[in-house]
């Protein structure tokens, strides 16, 4: 199932809080920038339902000012790779 990475811009002054919130979600890993108010979010889900649920959870987080998808690897690609 999909592995995706995002650039996340927190609302002003909310970087640490947002980091905690994102890290608490299942399937989410967060990498904070050391010197800027930016987070990298890597998500890993195992089904369409789970992916949709994660998206819904992200949409509810008010501390996200902007979220930008950078990369996405499909289930097919990962499965294909793992079987070769």
């Amino acid at each position, binding site marked *: 199932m999909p592995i995706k990475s995002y650039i996340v811009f927190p609302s002003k002054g909310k970087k640490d809080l947002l980091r905690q919130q994102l890290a608490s979600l299942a399937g989410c890993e967060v990498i904070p920038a050391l010197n*800027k108010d930016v987070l990298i979010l*890597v998500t890993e889900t195992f089904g369409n339902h789970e992916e949709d649920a994660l998206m819904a959870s992200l949409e509810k987080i008010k501390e996200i000012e902007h979220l930008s*998808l950078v990369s996405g690897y499909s289930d097919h690609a990962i499965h*294909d790779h793992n079987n070769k």
Partner: protein
Amino acid sequence: MMNRRIFIKKTAAFSAMAAAATMVPGILFAHEQKHDNPASDITWHKAPCRFCGVGCGILVGTQAGRAVAVKGDPNCSVNKGLLCVKGYHQIMCTSASDRLTKPLIKKNGKYVEVTMKEALDLVAAKMQETIKKYGKDSVAMYTSGQSTIPEGYVASKFMKGAIGTNNLECNARLCMASAVAGFLTTFGADEPMGCYEDIEHADVFVLWGNNMAEMHPVLFSRMLDNRLRRKNVKIIDLATRTTRTSKAADISILFKPQGDLAIANAICYELINNNWLDKNFIEKHVVFFKGKTGLGYGLEDKFAFKDEPEAIDFDQYKAFLNDYRPDKVEALTGVPAKEIKYLAALYGDPNLKVVTYWCMGINQHTRGTWANNLIYNIHLLTGKISQPGNGPFSLTGQPSACGTAREVGTFTHKLPKGVVTNKKSRELAAKIWKVPYERIPDKPTYHTTEMFRAIDRGDIRFIWIQSTNPLVSLPRTSRYRPALAKDSCFVVVSDVFPTPTTDVADVILPAAWHIEKSGLYGNSERRTQYWDKMIEPPGEALPDAWMTIEVARRMGFAKLFPYSKEKHHEEIYNEYRQFHAGKKHNMAPLSVLKKQSGAIWPYIEETGRSTLWRYNSRYDPACDTTKDFDFYGKPNGKAVIWLRPYEPAPEMPDNEYPFWLNTGRVIEHWHTGSMTRRIPVLHQAVPHAYVEIHPADAKRLGIKHNQKVKVISRRGQTVLPASVNDRGLPTPGQVFVPFFDENMLINDTTLDAFCPISKEPDFKKCAVRIEKV
């Protein structure tokens, strides 16, 4: 060995960190960048990116014979480790389920798999049979600015040196021909004088007909970074539609389609009338010419045009510009006179360094050569040229439009050095190719539009199309699709994926993709880059160059193509280099290109240096050292300021077709989408084309966002969802459609009018109407 899933997660994280670096200069993720690097058993190979003409350096990670990751090459001065979203995901297209892996021959209307030997035997036999029956000029090749340098070179040698026909064209005619004609008419030599390092030095960037934020995003990021680091850097966007570039620019100036010609002349009017000139530069390095006017638009088959340049003086040129006073031009272009004066003041300020970047808005233009000339006029009047941070710079859209199409010369009129009409050029080619001089014809035959018209008329009976998808990218595909499907022409198509062009082929040859072969590309800044084959192509797929060689050998030209299968790319490049030996265009040896991320010609072997700024004797070894600047492409060493007037577009909106149609691209997709639409993340981001409509027009017509509408021209129609207030914003009375979607063929509606000098079609202007479906 690292688990694949963990590896992909790490790669995804690295992609995001790298992308963040393009958006937030100086950002650090120190811990993650230093540690936990993806698996150590990955081998990284350098290459230029497969997509646009920027030529970003990529590092491709391979593991167990498979390409598994891509990252930006931090050692490549083009992109300094940055990549765009297409660059990061490029290798994912190779695993598309519908990849062409076996040759296919159409039998009784159905494709059947055959061996590569059978397919190549048939191609050679058909080509020979056609030549015997209808003559040499009944066969043609149509190649690409995505062909590697060796691929383009053997195509030229095969058609012009072996068979003896100039029926060789390439898709760069659709994107770069006006830039070439502009450079040749003004400077006598093709390709930009500057390089990307100009970005670090310029104070003002004028982006003219060019949505760089989407089409050349890495260069645009470098420009934004420059603006962040230095004060007083300005980006001016001159366009006919509001784009992401406009939004990031300091000033967005919108003009009416075709108004660019008048704006450039109005800027020159201001420069002269305010005495913002570099008189010393003009006196020493510039002459003035005028050419024919009222050229026509090439709308009829077999259209012919020959310019008649005539020397004039500065006073004649000044008098001509009186028609372009900013207040007069305001009505014609919609640009307020004060904005034109402001632009002129920026160009005219001796304390500001100015770079002008342009791409398809200027080139895909029925007066494209003129538009290029007019931008050069501005830089020549102000002496802002061939110096760090000062210069006009034409950007390219394909990875080797410069390296292959322009330098190898895969156009009907070109040879690897010079043109077919020049006796010395033919003699040099005959000598290096070891063919009789008389075999190379001295007249060009068909430029791209005319080549497909000749197929429609039945004059061309065989065509081999390599690495391009003309039935999506040509203008007026509504004529040329049925033309190519006619039984009168035997069609061979080599490609990596099925496309609307392979759909009409009699033979489909599976081609090796980018990293499945070794090759060389040449980017927009005269940089030649080499890469090694990294993985095996699937099935029977072969490099295009090798397929050409195999067919040539079958046709009795084995002696001319003595290359080895394993090293043919190297042997061909070494042969090709001989054409450009000398100070003006010396190309770096392969040993150098294998070690570093390219070199910019003319390459100085004594010092191991690239020439970053041509025509400036401080940098360029080809200059006369007694001069500060030497435009040595011209016999007198002087560049030309051309008197080029405004002339209207061939088709303008009227009561029946009231909208201008503009076509172009989006950041997620590259050209006809045959690769990027097979990359899931890019396809999902923009799964189909759309038609941008101004909100006021949409309201007036009762059209809502996403509602399906029909775009209709005098030539054809297509149905697309409307896009209102989304990515781009056309001006009222104009619509915009990206052309990447083979299911919504907007080029069925476009006009096959072209610049009579460059023969490049205008994809940016024709008249359409919009109807609700």
